[in-house]
Structures are given as structure tokens and as C-alpha cells.
């Protein structure tokens, strides 16, 4: 099969549906807008904590803050723009895993990774925060650096295995609808000055 033929097949492979539902989809917008409080009426702004934290980081180090857009694992990426907020029912451990990331041009930045969960109780959250605070993460530098600069598929399983030692019932986000789960992580970096 040549490239042109594959291109044609790829184009033809998209499932196509009727437009009957499009009108309902548009009406749904009206429902959502009508049912939810109007903009600018004091609704909590979920980005505030993240932004505030970013400012603290930047101010303390007098460096240039870089919010990393690359922290994926296919099922993991939760915090890349525009996902800087937590999902509904999401929880974030604000104790950072600190590391130095090296970009492909050789530049290094000081980075922090924040773990995100769902369905943890307060004790479990505190246990994980304590573990993050006390563990020596130096042997994780390579995976953590990959997470900050691009993609670190291995980090997901490694983190899950590690954190199951702290919260035994912890699962990956897609494994259960009821168990506590790791849902992702976010990283932020600043230039080393």
C-alpha cells in the first residue's frame, strides 16, 4: 500500500453521523448556561490556587517560570494546558516531588511534580504527602525529567507501584470506579539561574 492510498483510506475511515443531533447539542448549551450560575458571579475559580503557587515558585527563585505542557502518559496527562485545574472530584497533593529536568538543547530547569488523585480520604492524602516529602527521589530523575520535558510512559506504572506501598488499595484511574486512584500529575519548572 502506498502513502496516497493510505491517505485516502484514513480520510474515509472517519465515522460520520447524521446532523439530527446537532440541534440538540446546541440546545444543550442553552441548558448548561441557564442552569449554571452566570459568569462573574463569584463562582470559585479553580485556577487560582495553581496560579498562586506558580507565582510563589517564580518569586522565590527569581527565575522564569515554565509551566510544562508535557507530562503525558497516554491515560495520564491531566495538567497540561488547558488542564491546569483539577477535574471534578480531583485531589492534588501540594507537596512537590522536586527534580532537575534536562531539555533536549541541554538546558536544565528546576522542576516540581504534583500528584493528582481521586477518592482518597484525608488520612490517605496526608500519608502520600508525607511519603513524597520524605522519600529520596534521586533515582527517579530520568523518568521525572522525561515527564517535564515531553512524555514519560514508564512513570505511570512506577508511581503507581510506589504509591501502592503507601495506600494499598490505590489503582490506576481507569481500573475502578470506586477505589482511590492516581489520576495524573502536573509539573512546573523554572530556569536555573
Amino acid at each position, binding site marked *: 500500500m502506498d502513502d496516497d492510498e493510505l491517505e485516502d483510506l484514513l480520510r474515509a475511515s472517519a*465515522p460520520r*453521523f*447524521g446532523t439530527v443531533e446537532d440541534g440538540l447539542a446546541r440546545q444543550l448549551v442553552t441548558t448548561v448556561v441557564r442552569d449554571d450560575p452566570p459568569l*462573574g458571579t463569584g463562582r470559585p475559580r479553580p485556577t487560582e490556587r495553581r496560579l498562586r503557587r506558580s507565582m510563589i515558585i517564580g518569586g522565590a527563585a527569581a527565575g522564569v517560570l515554565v509551566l510544562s505542557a508535557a507530562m503525558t502518559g497516554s491515560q495520564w496527562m491531566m495538567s497540561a494546558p488547558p488542564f491546569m485545574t483539577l477535574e*471534578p472530584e480531583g485531589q492534588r497533593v501540594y507537596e512537590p516531588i522536586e527534580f532537575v529536568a534536562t531539555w533536549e538543547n541541554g538546558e536544565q530547569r528546576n522542576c516540581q511534580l504534583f500528584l493528582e488523585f481521586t477518592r482518597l480520604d484525608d488520612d490517605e492524602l496526608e500519608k502520600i504527602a508525607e511519603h513524597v516529602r520524605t522519600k529520596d527521589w534521586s533515582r527517579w530523575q530520568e523518568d521525572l525529567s522525561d515527564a517535564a520535558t515531553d512524555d514519560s510512559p514508564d512513570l505511570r506504572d512506577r508511581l503507581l507501584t510506589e504509591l501502592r506501598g503507601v495506600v494499598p488499595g490505590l489503582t490506576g484511574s481507569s481500573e475502578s470506579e470506586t477505589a482511590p486512584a492516581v489520576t495524573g500529575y502536573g509539573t512546573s519548572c523554572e530556569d536555573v539561574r
Partner: protein
Amino acid sequence: MTADQTIPAADRADEIEDWLGVMAPMLLAYFLRRVTPPDEAADLLAEALLVLWRRAEAIPAEDRAARMWAYGVARNVLRGHRRTSRRRSALTERLRAELASTEEVAHPADDRVLDLRSAIERLKPIDREIVRLVHWDGLSLVEAAEVVGMREGTVRSRYHRARSVLRGQLG
């Protein structure tokens, strides 16, 4: 994205609502192409619209960036849909009912297309999503990179690798 590029949403509620009206069918198509049964797409769309509305203050002002933002939210909602509670309204239920009987307009008779879909399903999840964003949702590789939150170069190399895999599997 910098703060001065975001929409002052309190002044632009009507504009945001209109924009959501434009995006809603596109997002519905995005979900329909990715979930089974299709009526799941109603819940996902409702959830995505709610997230977009609540985050309207941060929607980029530039059209293309705003569209990528919306796809990004849709992708995030899709990933989380098994663990979040559903927003149910009468209209959502109606949309669910409509979608329950939804079928493709023209189911491809070409076996090679069906083989290709199967091959796409077998790709690594991130590669599968890149291929779908480009060929099913009509995004450029630059835009797909924005949606999946990866560098453009990485997405390009993954995309070309995925094409090689697909070509190899289809013979």
C-alpha cells in the same frame, strides 16, 4: 497563553454561549467517534460544555486556540468519564435517546476501511488519538500537539511512525 490573551468572560457571556453553540456539534462528533454505546456521548457532551462554561474566563480569545482548548477539554472529559458523576437534564436524556439509535450515515462497505479502523484501534493510545485528531477531527499536526499536550516534533514523529505501522498492518 498569557493572561492578557484570555477573554474577560463577564463581559462576553453571550459571545461564549454563541461559541459553545458552534463547538457543541463538533464536540458531539468527537465523542461519538470514540465511545460505545453512542448515547454515552450525550453525557460527555453535557460534561464538556459545563467545564467549558465554568472555565469560560480562561478560554483563549484567538479562535484556533479556543477550538484546541475545547478539544483538550473534551479529551480530558473522555478520559475521566468513568469516574465522574453524570449531569442529567431532560435535554441530556433526550439527546441520549436520540443517540441511542444513532448509526453511521454511511457505514463503509470497503473492507479495507474497516481493517484500517481495527488497525487504528490497535495503535498505542496516544498514537491512536493523534491519528484520529488529524484524520477524523480534521486537526493539523500542530493543533493535535496542542490538544494532547505534547511537543509538535514528538507528535510528528509519532504520527509518521503510526502511519508506518498502519501501512504495514494493511499490507
